[in-house]
């Protein structure tokens, strides 16, 4: 079953990739919202340490992060081992493991744009909303999210696109199991290494075109519903 010069396994890998990117981006956005908010507004000293920590996953090569994660999530690691003792399975070579790995690696791409957006927004819109009876959640939905839309978009795009292309971490903790952990990036690389350049090119092209179309749509929608700017 080959279509567009792309074999079935690769279609599955592609599908897995988008699922992974979608899930980890969604989870990251949810988790990073409070963190970025706190970073944007706290006056505490510890803030700079947390800010530095957030950027740290980028500093190590993904394969190495992946290696340490493999140990951590595997049956002998702190996380995997605990799970095993609780009767569950460890997380190496699982989709969950991939999600965790790509989330850790994409963390800075989500936290930093959100934090910037929150800082740029200032407290005024929230104060206004509060005087108009909006409680904390209400303010989040009706004021914070719309006003930090550009930051949210950047966070989502960077995290999503980055997960599409993530290779090292996923290679290490995924084990390249077709249909489970073999994502497109690993499939493409396999083709390249195996000198099956045609498949590599086709799959790369498809990934790029799909991502490009998605991004153009997202940006076009964003532009359509854009606030015209602040001046005059």
């Amino acid at each position: 079953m080959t279509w567009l010069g792309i074999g079935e396994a690769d279609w599955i890998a592609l599908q897995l990739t988008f699922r992974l990117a979608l899930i980890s981006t969604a989870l990251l956005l949810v988790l990073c919202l409070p963190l970025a908010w706190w970073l944007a507004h706290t006056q505490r000293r510890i803030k700079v340490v947390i800010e530095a920590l957030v950027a740290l996953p980028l500093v190590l090569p993904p394969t190495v992060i992946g290696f340490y994660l493999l140990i951590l999530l595997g049956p002998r690691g702190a996380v995997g081992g605990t799970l095993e003792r609780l009767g569950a399975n460890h997380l190496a070579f699982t989709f969950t493991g991939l999600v965790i790995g790509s989330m850790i690696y994409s963390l800075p791409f989500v936290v930093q744009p959100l934090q910037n957006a929150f800082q740029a927004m200032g407290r005024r819109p929230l104060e206004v909303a509060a005087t108009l009876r909006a409680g904390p959640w209400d303010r989040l939905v009706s004021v914070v999210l719309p006003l930090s839309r550009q930051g949210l978009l950047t966070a989502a795009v960077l995290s999503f696109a980055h997960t599409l292309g993530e290779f090292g971490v996923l290679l290490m903790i995924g084990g390249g199991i077709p249909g489970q952990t073999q994502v497109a990036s690993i499939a493409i690389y396999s083709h390249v290494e195996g000198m099956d350049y045609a498949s590599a090119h086709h799959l790369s092209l498809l990934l790029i075109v799909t991502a490009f179309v998605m991004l153009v749509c997202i940006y076009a929608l964003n532009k359509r519903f854009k606030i015209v700017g602040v001046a005059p």
Partner: protein
Amino acid sequence: MSLACEFRLARGDFALDARMTLPERGVTALFGRSGSGKTTLLRCLAGLERAEGWLTVNGCRWQDDERFLPVHRRPLGYVFQEASLFPHLRVRDNLRYGYRRVPVARRRVDFDETVRLLGVEALLERYPQALSGGQRQRVAIARALLASPRLLLMDEPMASLDATSKAEILPYLERLHDHLEIPVVYVSHALEEVARLADHMVLLEAGRVLATGPLHELLTRSDLPLAHADNAAAVLEAQVLDYDAGRQLVTLSCGDVRLRVSREQAPSSQRLRLSIRASDVAISLSPARDSSVLNCLPVRIAEIDDDPHPGHRLVRLALGDQALLARIPREAVERLALAPGMAVHAQVRARALT
């Protein structure tokens, strides 16, 4: 007494240390020089600043050492001094923001009427960026009112409005204040606006309450800066005796004396508030019969004070148990040999305020 508070808050060199009690309804003017802490005090009332102290509104404790009612639980309306419209919402949605969040049963302000009276009907579909400064301010006022507040805080709401817009909005605000029966705290630098709207006044100076009391008392107290302001005025409370519809004239009694004031319609209540500017009062020794001035009142000179206006003196006149201010050229004081205790005639141009 309906709103009472005490706040202490430090901001750099500036320290707010204010204690005040406001009447249950009616407008309290918050007056003070730039930087005296008016905005800060409003923010404390709204709960936007976590000041030390306490606040009781309508018998409910909103804030003290133990409690702190969060802003969104305080049923208030706040018109901010600076632009505060949500840039991501059209004017309509800005207006509906607070309105929607008040349960239907508790809404006490009509959407369409407010929109019409603030002259923003034509702007409903625009984004705030496409509004002029004054248009933004009107939308902000409407938005605060539409939240059916039980305490209204307005920080120079009309600063960038033209006279005509003001003249349209003021009567609406007056009616609304009556109708809502809530306390209103109103910051304004325009004494005329204040004289028209406010019953009560709080004077701030460098973060402290300099004086507080009924408007007409504070306006004429010569120990306070108001009496010496450019547009110093006295406010009189008078009893309506008669309305002459043809000439649009109301006859009033104020203590023993009678006053006449032009007015479009018959007053709806038995009492009227009059504002009489110091510069609108002239003194003559004999009653002037053939003058266009409506009122020529027998008064007694209570006090002759300095006036910051060049070449003038400020004369306090006793009119029954109320007081009038007159700004008189020094030359005239000499020429007419005015002195405290003298009985003279005051030629008075009064304006009905309510």
